[in-house]
């Protein structure tokens, strides 16, 4: 029984990890209809920044772990936000208004540039953090128990909270209105006095900060990273976003958790070798019956 419980928790955590990265993907797609392949790379960069700032926090004599973590998170968000802004300014804005495929190619190029930049600047080795914190919640007996670490609880909470906040911002604030207007008709939004360039930049900054929240928490959880983690994480998160319906924020979370649970349960009760095969088979099945994903709305052709 505790095995099933533990596997469900494993799946929930893995799913939240996918969801947390997927939110940034889906956010950008929802507003400008473009898949930002460099998102995984921003996530990877934030893992490096996390390690760097954590070391700096130590140098500055910040001993308390929560304070150090908040300090690190704040600086990581600022810097990755700058990355998000720069990437959009350099690689996507000049291509706005060209064909649909041009920014896609540019995004893949950007992802390669960032990957190689980090590889050259930081080395190709795996980097590791020592386990800093051991807090864990255990239910059950001495041997048979179900457990979740405090960091994992924070990851699940962060996914739910950021999904909720962003949904609220998009639906209920002036900024959200500007975003939705930009998404629906850029020219008209411009005519009505919305600075669409600025809005899109802001969306990228928010997307990048989501990636950095994910990067910090996930690195803290697993403790190892290299310049290539963005690619693997990006693929899974993208799958989660598509499964949930790309463009939908609750969909990203739902897709992530569904993907995580299916991988975890399949690996746990059937076979680890084929867990990815099973997860992608699930994606294909869902897309066959719901081509726009679980919570995605069918695209209306604009006239």
């Amino acid at each position: 029984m505790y095995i099933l419980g533990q596997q469900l928790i494993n799946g929930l955590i893995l799913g939240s990890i996918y969801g947390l990265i997927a939110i940034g993907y889906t956010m950008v797609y929802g507003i400008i209809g473009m898949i930002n392949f460099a998102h995984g790379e921003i996530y990877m960069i934030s893992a490096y920044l996390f390690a760097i700032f954590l070391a700096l926090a130590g140098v500055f004599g910040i001993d308390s772990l929560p304070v150090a973590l908040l300090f690190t998170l704040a600086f990581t968000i600022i810097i990755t936000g700058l990355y998000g802004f720069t990437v959009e300014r350099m690689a996507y804005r000049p291509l706005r208004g060209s064909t649909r495929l041009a920014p896609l190619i540019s995004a893949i190029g950007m992802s390669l540039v960032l990957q190689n930049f980090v590889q050259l600047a930081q080395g190709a080795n795996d980097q590791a953090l020592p386990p800093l914190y051991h807090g864990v919640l255990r239910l059950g007996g001495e041997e048979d128990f179900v457990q979740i670490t405090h960091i994992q609880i924070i990851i699940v909470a962060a996914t739910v909270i950021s999904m909720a906040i962003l949904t609220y911002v998009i639906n209920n604030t002036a900024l959200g209105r500007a975003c939705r207007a930009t998404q629906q008709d850029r020219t008209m939004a411009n005519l009505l006095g919305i600075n669409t360039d600025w809005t899109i930049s802001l969306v990228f900054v928010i997307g990048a900060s989501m990636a950095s929240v994910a990067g910090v928490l996930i690195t803290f959880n697993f403790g190892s990273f290299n310049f290539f983690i963005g690619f693997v994480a990006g693929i899974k998160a993208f799958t989660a976003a598509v499964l949930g319906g790309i463009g939908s924020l609750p969909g990203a979370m739902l897709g992530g958790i569904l993907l995580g649970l299916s991988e975890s349960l399949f690996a746990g009760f059937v076979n680890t070798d084929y867990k990815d095969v099973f997860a992608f088979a699930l994606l294909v099945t869902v897309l066959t019956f719901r081509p726009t994903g679980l919570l995605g709305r069918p695209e209306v052709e604009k006239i």
Partner: protein
Amino acid sequence: MNRYFGAVVLAVALLFGAAGCEKKSDVIKIGVAGPITGAYAKFGEQLVKGATLAADIINAAGGINGRKIEVVQGDDQCDPKQARAVANSFVNDKVYAVVGHFCSSSTIPASEVYDEANILQITPASTNPQVTDRGLAAVFRTCGRDDQQGNVAGDFIAKQLKAKRVAIIHDKDTYGQGLADATKARLRTHGIKEVLYEGITRGDKDFNSLVTKMKGLKVDVIYFGGIHTEAGLIVRQAREQGLKATFISGDGIVTSEFASIAGPAADGVLMTFGADPRNLPAAADVVKQFRDSGYEPEAYTLYSYTTMQIIAEALAKNDVTNDGAKLAKYIKATSFSTVMGSKAFDSKGDLKVTDYVVYKWYPSGGGKYDYKEL
């Protein structure tokens, strides 16, 4: 005029370039290939450092018959496609012999390219049986084979650990799965049937569901065929979930990086590897030179050094020929004295004597971990 100027310059340059190549060059190029970048770069570094120091010392002593060795590096990132590309570029570069590659899954496809070009290849690190079992004329290795390594691991699990419930995990790679299969076969001869045999994916970070599954199966020994990046995470997540089973793996985790990924979970992890060459009296001088330069010659560094020594001696005794078959014939008939002691090869290209032993990771103070022979 301007339009053609560039083309003319290019044509002239090519002409002179070609003429330059025709001139018999004085250096002897020897390729060193391995994962110089990528997740397994630590092992690539060992290969390059070992071969380069050997070449430097040979050059300082006058080179091979008066000609200097030039080490040419090739980065295969442990990717089979990249390995073939590196092999082709070595062939075009006219290297005399190759030290490498590291991953068996790279060594095997690359060896086909070298075989066609009749170039000698000696790998210091690829342990999969298929490397030498395919009957290629000029492929050797200065390390052991996974069937030998698996035998030592299998015997140890059965006799010393007296395991009842063994889980075998591999990373679906030529090396990892080959090693896991060898150990599995040996365990069967002891009458131990594994309770779990599954493959993980390289690059994954989350192995919690596998760990929970092993917990449910109440395994007492986990055998892992694969490399330290995944091994470190598996053992770390196992300890986090309170799974106390003994973790044992092979030569793929012999690097300090394993301990930095695993953290305190590294304590008590076992692995099979050749008897530590750093303790051999023949290696003392070279080990000192490495340490003086600020590099600890762990794992495959001295294997790579030895490989370069064997290549240099074979070239010196055969008028610096690049004929792989001829060099191979000489190597099979000779016993070499190297920093790792005397080395002789059988007709397949494997070492006649191998010396796998079991090592254990232990805390060496200051939050660091080191390994020693049991």
